[in-house]
C-alpha cells in the first residue's frame, strides 16, 4: 500500500516485490518427478523419433480432447505452419492482427500472405463481422485465434466460413483445457493448434499439438512432421523435422496429469484480481469470452486513460518499477511490425480497433510463481496508482 507519492518505486521508493513477478504460467513438475522421468528415459535409451512416451502422450491427449487425432509437434508455430501446408492452402489466409506474431509468421513460413482483420473491441475475439469486413479475393482459409483462455464465437464463424466455402483452422495456443457448451476446444474447424510452451497452462517446455477429427488431414500432417510416427505413408509436399522428444513428452504427461489443479489455482488468482480491480475506475479485467470453463492462464486488463488517470504505458512503468513485469501484449500489432508493415502496407492504418487495444491492454502476472496474496498486492498497487494518478503523471 502506497501512502504517499514518494513511496512509489518509480519515484525512488522501495519496490513492492523484491523478486520480480512474471507473466506466464511456468508450472513445472516437482524435482523428484522430473528426476525419475529423466532416469527412465536414459534407462530405456529411447530419446526421440516417436518413442513410447510420445505415443502415450498422443493417446492421452486424444482422450483428453475426445478427438480422433492429436499430433504432437516441436512447437505451436511449426504446428500452424504444418496445418497451412497440409491443407494445401494457396495465396492468402485471413486472421486477426490482434494475436501473437507467430500466427502470421507461420503463414508466411508456409508461403502464404496474411490478410489481417479486426477483433471485437469487447471480447478481443474475431467475429463474422470483422472477418466479412476484411475478406478479399485470394483468401483460401480463415485462422481465428482463441484468445486469453476464452474463445472466438465459433458457431457463427463456422457458418460464415461455410457460406464462403472457406476452411477454418484455429490458433488455440492459449486454449488448452478451455470448454465451450459444445465441448472442449480442439474439435473445431479443420484443426486446432495448441501450445505447450513453458508460459502456457500445459507445458512441455517447448512443444505443441495439432488436434483434428479429419483422419486424412492428420495422416498428412504426420507424414510432414517426420519419418517417424507415420501410420500410413502418403506423398506430401514436404517432410520437415517437427518432432517432440521423449523428454518433452515426459514433461507434458506430468503436466496433463495436474491440469485441473493448475486451472483451479489460476482461477483463484483470477478471482483475487477481479475482487481487487472491480471497483477501480478505468480498469476492465477481461473475462474469458464464449466459454463455459476457462484455463485462466491470462490476466488481461484494459486501461481507459481518461477514467484511470494514467495511460497504460505509464501504469506499465509504475508496475515495472515495483517488480511487476506486466506485459503490453500485443504491442506493436502485427500489421505494424517488421516485415508485415512493409510487405502489407495496406493494413498499417486500416485496423483502428486493434491499434486501440494494442495501446490499452496490459497482461498481469499469474501462474506457478504468483500467489493470491501477490495478486492482491498487485491489485492494490493499481488502485494506488489510480489514487495518485495526478502526482505520478506530473512526475512521469
Amino acid at each position: 500500500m502506497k501512502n504517499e507519492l514518494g513511496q512509489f518505486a518509480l519515484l525512488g521508493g522501495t519496490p513492492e516485490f523484491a523478486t520480480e513477478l512474471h507473466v506466464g504460467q511456468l508450472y513445472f513438475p516437482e524435482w523428484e518427478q522430473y528426476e525419475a522421468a529423466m532416469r527412465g528415459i536414459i534407462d530405456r535409451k529411447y530419446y526421440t523419433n516417436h518413442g513410447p512416451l510420445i505415443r502415450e502422450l498422443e493417446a492421452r491427449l486424444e482422450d483428453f480432447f475426445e478427438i480422433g487425432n492429436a499430433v504432437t509437434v516441436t512447437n505451436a508455430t511449426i504446428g500452424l505452419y504444418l496445418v497451412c501446408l497440409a491443407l494445401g492452402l494457396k495465396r492468402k489466409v485471413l486472421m486477426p492482427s490482434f494475436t501473437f506474431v507467430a500466427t502470421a509468421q507461420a503463414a508466411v513460413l508456409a508461403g502464404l500472405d496474411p490478410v489481417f482483420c479486426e477483433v471485437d473491441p469487447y471480447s478481443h475475439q474475431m467475429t463474422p463481422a470483422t472477418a466479412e469486413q476484411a475478406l478479399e479475393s485470394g483468401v483460401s482459409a480463415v485462422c481465428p485465434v482463441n484468445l486469453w483462455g476464452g474463445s472466438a464465437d465459433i458457431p457463427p464463424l463456422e457458418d460464415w466460413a461455410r457460406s464462403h466455402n472457406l476452411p477454418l483452422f484455429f490458433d488455440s495456443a492459449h486454449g488448452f483445457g478451455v470448454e465451450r457448451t459444445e465441448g472442449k476446444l480442439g474439435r473445431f474447424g479443420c484443426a486446432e493448434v495448441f501450445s505447450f510452451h513453458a508460459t502456457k497452462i500445459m507445458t512441455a517446455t517447448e512443444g505443441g499439438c495439432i488436434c483434428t477429427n479429419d483422419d486424412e488431414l492428420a495422416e498428412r500432417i504426420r507424414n510432414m512432421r517426420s519419418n517417424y510416427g507415420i501410420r500410413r505413408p502418403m506423398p506430401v509436399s514436404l517432410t520437415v523435422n517437427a518432432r517432440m522428444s521423449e523428454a518433452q513428452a515426459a514433461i507434458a504427461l506430468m503436466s496433463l496429469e495436474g491440469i485441473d489443479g493448475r486451472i483451479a489455482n489460476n482461477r483463484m488468482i483470477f478471482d483475487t484480481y477481479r475482487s481487487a480491480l472491480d471497483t477501480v475506475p478505468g480498469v476492465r479485467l477481461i473475462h474469458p469470452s464464449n466459454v463455459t470453463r476457462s484455463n485462466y492462464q491470462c490476466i488481461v486488463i484494459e486501461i481507459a486513460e481518461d477514467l484511470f488517470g494514467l495511460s497504460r504505458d505509464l501504469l506499465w512503468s509504475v508496475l515495472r518499477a515495483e517488480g511487476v513485469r506486466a506485459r503490453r501484449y500485443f504491442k506493436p500489432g502485427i500489421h505494424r511490425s517488421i516485415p508485415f508493415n512493409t510487405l502489407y502496407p495496406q493494413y498499417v492504418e486500416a485496423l483502428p480497433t486493434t491499434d486501440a487495444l494494442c495501446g490499452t491492454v496490459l497482461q498481469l502476472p499469474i501462474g506457478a510463481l504468483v500467489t493470491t496474496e501477490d495478486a492482491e498486492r498487485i491489485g492494490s498497487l493499481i488502485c494506488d496508482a489510480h489514487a495518485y494518478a495526478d502526482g505520478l503523471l506530473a512526475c512521469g
Partner: protein
Amino acid sequence: MTLSKLATDDLALFGGPATFSPPKSIGSLANPDPTKLLDYSRIFYDQHRYTNNGPVNRMLEDRLAKWHRAERCVTFANAFWGLSLAIRYLAIPGRSEVITPSLTYRRMGEIIASAGMVPRFCDVDPETLAQTEETTRQWINRDTALVLGAHPTVNCCDAAGLERLSAETGIPLLFDSVESAFETTKGRRVGTFGRAEGFSIHATKLINGFEGGYLVTNDHELADWLKLMRGFGIPEEDEIVCFGMNAKLNEIHAAMAMASMDDLDALVERNRQRYLAYRELLAGIEGISLRLFDEEEQTSFKNILVRLDQKWPLSRDDTLAILQAEGALARPYYSPALHTHKAGFETRSGYLPVAEQISKQFMLLPCGDQMGRRDITVLVELLGFVTAHAVEIGKALNAVNNLEVRTGYDPVAVRRETPLKESHEE
C-alpha cells in the same frame, strides 16, 4: 554371444531367430551419465527458466563455440530449422537456387524448400564421396543464391576448396557439418568454414541432446540475426525487428547436450576401439570394404560405412534385408541419391552419375555404445555366413521374390515395419 546360424533357414529373414535383440541401430545414441543431466537441469530448474535462451542454453552456446574454435554459436530446436533460417538469411536476394550435393542427408532438399528456395543438386567425387569445388562450380548460374556444402559421414569434404569458390564467385557458402562435428580437415577445426556451419544434437549424433541443432560462425552479425529469427524476431519485449519463427532449443535438451559433451572424449575413444575392431574383422571378408577414417586428422570414428563391391555375392538391398531382419539395422548410405528421388517440391539437377552409382553401393553398419566388441564380432560373422551361403541364400531370396510376384505378399515390407519402428535415424 556367438552367431548361431548353421544353415540358410536359420536366418531371421527365412524364419530363424533374430541375432540382435533389442535391435542395433546406426545412430550413436550416446547415454550420458544421468547425474550430469540432473546437475545441469538443476540450473534451469532453480531459475524457473525452461526455454527462451535460458541459462543452460547460454552455457551450451559458449561451450560449443569454444569447442569449434569459433566466435559464436546459436542453438536451435533442431538442425533442420537452424539451417533453414540460415539459408533465408544468407541467400542472395532475388535468386532462387541453392546448390547442395545429391549424396547427402535425405531431407536436405526439404530444408532448402522450407526456406522458400529451390535445391539444385550437384555430383560428388568418387573417392571422397563429397562434393568438390569442381562438381559445385559446374552448376553455378545467374540464379545461384547460395552453396550449401555438406560433409560426408566419414571424413570431410574439401571445405577450403568450396571457400575458394565462394570467394571467387561471391556466392555465399553455408555448411551442413552434422556428420563432422568432431573433425578437423587439413588441420583446421570444422566450425568456421564458410559463413556458418550447421550441426545436429539429435540423439543419433555425436552429442545427444534428444533433439536440437546449432550453428557456429565467426560472423557476429549473422549470429545476432539468427538468434532473433529463432525467437520470433523479438529482441526485447514490445519490439519485433525481423521475420522469425519459433526454433528455440529448450533447456532440458541443452542440459542433455552438456551432459553428453562431458563424456565426449571417452566416447570418441570407445568409437575408435569399435572402428578398429570392425577394421580388423572386416579385413577377412571378401567383397566388403570399410571406409577408413583419416587418422591424420581429428575424427570421431563414429560412423561405420562399408562398400559392397563386385565380389560381394548379393545385392546391397538383399544384404540390408538380411541384416535388418537379424536386428542389425544397417541402412543404405544416402540412398536414393536426392536427384533421383521424386520430391513434392521443385528441384533442379543435371546428369550426376557418380552420386547415382555410389548411392547403390554403400551401407552404414550399427555403431555407438550399443555395439560391444562381441556384437561387432557376431555381426561380422553374420556377414561371413552370408558370403559362405550366398548361393543358397540367393535361391531362398528368389523363392521369396516369386512368392511376392504370385501373391502380392511383400515379406520384406512386412518385416521392415517391425524393426524400423524402433530404429533411430534422424
